């Protein structure tokens, strides 16, 4: 028991002894003892490094590092949580440039894909081959195959115009646009005049290798 107490006392003394010196060194940078480092400081040159007590400085630096590291981690998590709102994953309207780009592409693609001029059948073929991908090819064929055959026979001109469109969602390389379109067909003979029909459907886009392609045409089960 007594040896332990002695030991504790000795450690305390040892621990307490250097403290005043340490404080002195920090509080009074003016040289009392003539040391080479102090002389340098006195002549206006910056001292190399304060020689004493590396451990305290080290501890302070380590503590600061931990603190900053912890803040970095926490702030990163907060930023991620802040951005991870489900609504924010859909950038329709929030990304103005992309929204208007997709809208513009849709208006043009619908006009190209659903219009037909018997005098220039290659235009329709070109639109199909350059704009459609995946299941959209079959969907387009199903929607327009019969109409096109009819138009070819009766030498009709079918014009489709988007009257209203709105981007439902854009998430990364995918987008979906709701379209209201009008289709007019007229034969050159003017037998039946011009007929109008309204349509509504959604166009699905996918970006492949930097190109936006129509990947689906949703006619809502019609």
């Amino acid at each position, binding site marked *: 028991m007594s040896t332990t107490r002695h030991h504790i006392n000795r450690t305390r003394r040892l621990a307490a002894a250097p403290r005043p010196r340490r404080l002195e060194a920090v509080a009074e940078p003016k040289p009392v003892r003539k040391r080479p480092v102090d002389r340098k400081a006195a002549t206006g040159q910056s001292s190399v490094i304060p020689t004493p007590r590396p451990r305290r400085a080290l501890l302070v630096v380590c503590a600061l590092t931990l603190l900053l590291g912890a803040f970095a981690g926490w702030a990163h998590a907060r930023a991620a949580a*802040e951005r991870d709102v489900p609504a924010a994953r859909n950038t329709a309207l929030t990304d103005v440039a992309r929204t208007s780009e997709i809208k513009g592409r849709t208006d043009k693609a619908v006009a190209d894909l659903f219009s037909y001029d018997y005098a220039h059948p290659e235009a329709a073929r070109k639109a199909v081959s350059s704009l459609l991908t995946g299941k959209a090819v079959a969907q387009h064929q199903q929607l327009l195959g019969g109409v096109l055959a009819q138009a070819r026979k009766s030498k009709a001109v079918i014009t489709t115009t988007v009257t*209203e469109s709105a981007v439902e969602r854009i998430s990364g390389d995918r987008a979906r646009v709701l379209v209201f379109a009008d289709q007019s067909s007229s034969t050159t003979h003017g037998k039946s005049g011009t007929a109008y029909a309204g349509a509504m459907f959604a166009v699905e886009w996918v970006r492949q290798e930097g190109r936006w392609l129509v990947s689906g045409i949703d006619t809502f089960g019609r």
Partner: protein
Amino acid sequence: MPRTRPHHLLRAALVARPLLVAALALLLVAGGFAARSGVSWYRAAHDDSAAYAVERDNALSAGEQSVQNLNTLDHNSLERGLDLWESSTTGELHSQLVAGRAKFEEQVRQAKTVSTAKVLSGAVTELDDRAGRARVLIALRVTVRAPGGEASDKDSRMLGELTRTEGHWKLSALGQAPVGDTSAD
């Protein structure tokens, strides 16, 4: 001469206190990360587009629900249906519905129809977050059951205008997209 001094300083420091220099380097790195993620957090917290996206979705779901409400009516529970119509609308549309209620009620009571509506798809075309105004396109399928006959489906291309009143989006105008020459603009 003065140019070489920092270099000498660093070398001297490395020799005298390698651990402290290493710790300082780590501190610098941690400081960099802290600053970067701090800025990122600030930006995320002040990102208006997230709030705008939330408001867009609020407007759309309110728009879809309201359009569905206004196309749903059961002659057996006319009062409840028409109350819902009125609570889904505001502004001019609301006034029109209130003004025409009695007459309309009478018509439906005689026709004995049951209408149900389903929103197929919807999207916001415009959203003014500050003014609290929005425009929506809604693809709608309405099923009408007449007393003796079978149900008939009809697809409608709806254009709606929404106004935010007391924090809630309500329909202030509703119509069908016209077909033909007139619709072009």
